[in-house]
């Protein structure tokens, strides 16, 4: 059997979502962003809403998300994506509007914007990637960095008395009346990806039901920032992140 037998259409078992562009991703091998992008592209494509979806990309590693998913994108200033999404959705209620934000963007500099957008119950989707570190700027402490975790700005490990505590922003927004669906997911294996995709789809469906804000956290890895192989990073995440950031739905109404 030669290669031409293998690539026959009837032998095809998987193809990438047509909404994923052919641009080569700048993400590091092993990074969670690529998988979450794939989930988003598949959900938007399967729902057939690419002509009425507006994505808001953050500042951070995902700033270039607009290069990878073939929809209209607004690129926000650091932390402000929920403010952009608020106006985009209120002015265009027939559109699906989502933000895509990392932990520095959403849980540090953009805390006010995310809290108030969620509190107003904006009918948007928030995709929150929590990898407990600043990836783009070179591995500094994030608000979600675990106690003891070594980063470029916590070279001796995060200490509560110096740096405060890791911020469970997802539990925090679940307290707000404006949120309708708050869940914490991961994407480190096929089972997790399948589960997460269902959550993302539910979040997008919610945004046309006038129910309020849907918030999907992904606990993810940053193997470059963590200075680990992808496999080791996944293992470290399961052993250290999951106990502090437990997976599952926190709120669903």
């Amino acid at each position: 059997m030669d290669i031409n037998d293998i690539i026959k259409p009837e032998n095809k078992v998987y193809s990438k979502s047509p909404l994923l562009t052919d641009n080569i991703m700048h993400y590091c091998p092993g990074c969670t962003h690529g998988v979450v992008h794939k989930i988003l592209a598949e959900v938007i494509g399967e729902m057939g809403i690419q002509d009425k979806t507006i994505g808001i990309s953050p500042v951070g590693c995902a700033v270039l998300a607009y290069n990878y998913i073939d929809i209209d994108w607004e690129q926000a200033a650091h932390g402000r994506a929920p403010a952009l999404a608020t106006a985009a959705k209120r002015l265009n209620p027939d559109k699906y509007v989502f933000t895509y934000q990392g932990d520095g963007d959403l849980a540090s500099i953009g805390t006010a914007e995310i809290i108030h957008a969620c509190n107003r119950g904006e009918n948007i989707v928030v995709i929150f990637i929590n990898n407990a570190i600043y990836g783009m700027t070179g591995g500094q402490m994030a608000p979600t960095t675990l106690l003891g975790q070594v980063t470029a700005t916590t070279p001796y490990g995060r200490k509560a008395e110096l740096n405060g505590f890791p911020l469970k922003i997802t539990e925090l927004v679940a307290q707000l009346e404006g949120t309708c669906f708050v869940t914490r997911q991961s994407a480190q294996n096929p089972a997790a990806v399948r589960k997460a995709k269902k959550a993302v789809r539910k979040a997008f469906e919610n945004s046309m039901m006038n129910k309020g804000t849907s918030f999907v956290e992904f606990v993810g890895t940053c193997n470059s920032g963590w200075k680990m192989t992808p496999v080791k990073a996944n293992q470290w995440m399961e052993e250290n992140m999951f106990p502090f950031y437990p997976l599952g739905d926190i709120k669903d109404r």
Partner: protein
Amino acid sequence: MAEKILMKGNEAIAYGAIRYGCDGYFGYPITPQSEVMETLMAEKPWETTGMVVLQAESETSSINMLYGGACTGKKVMTSSSSPGISLMCEGMSYLAGAELPCLIVNVMRGGPGLGTIQPSQSDYFQCVKGGGHGDYKMIVLAPASAQDMYDFVDKAFELAFKYRTPAMILSDGVIGQMMEKVELRPIKPRRTAEEIDAQCEWACTGRKSGRKKHMITSLALEAPVQEAANIRLQEKYKEIEEKEALFATYRTEDAEYLLVAFGSMSRLSESVVDLARENGIKMGLLRPITLFPYPKQALESLIPQLKSIASVELNSGQMVEDIRLIVNGRVPVYHFGRMGGMIPSPEEIYEAFVKTINR
């Protein structure tokens, strides 16, 4: 004839927004401009024109809501006063960098810091020179009456969309708080989705099949790409300078002495001109209506007949620097101003002027 209504400059902004087809207002309360959002909330335009009005959690959010809405091709605006404008400067830089049309109203108060709620023009440098980081300008209109506040909402949106750039109405506490009669000129309805698509082919309105995705960003990681963007912006500003400068003159035909003043100070300066003329001094006034683009040609054409120029400003001397750049030493250029929310009387300005000619 259209109805004439007594209203504050701030209220005129709100009525201008509703009647000139604004799609969304996002703001945060601050004295002396809070009547803008208060009037909008009382008028409930979402029930009539469909305009969205939202009290944001901060000025930072307000300006970024403008960015979010402007990306979709909508006519969006905010209003604030000096300390709030400082908070918005980050967003204004992004809006300029991403080439997004929008309207920002600054009803200036005295600073620095929390300063005073009383009128000032001390944000001239900040607003006319850009405000935020990076090499950019905004179109800046300086109203001198409540009617201007109303009319300039339309004018600012027109220019903002024509050039895909943020526009500012740079007002102050005098013009914002003063009541005058305002003629409610004919309504311009909000644009339909089709009209927005036609006017803003760049807008993020959902990628229709067959067209490429729209990405609105101010990011260019590679230097040559960023420089190309900078050059494009500068060319746009040059075109704006060539085509859009607005000004008014008062008794300049035979003037030997010229006052230059914008906004509220142009109103006071008219009285100074009258006072000088009563005393046999041939004085005139140039009122820049646009501060960017600055009416360079108008000033240039008056220089040959002048003995001196005085810039009258509610600040320590900001616009006077632009005048000096244009005049380039050909005639003396003075500055008269008060700070901290203090407003000079026309007599006070006149007396200060007389001292300069007796020097």
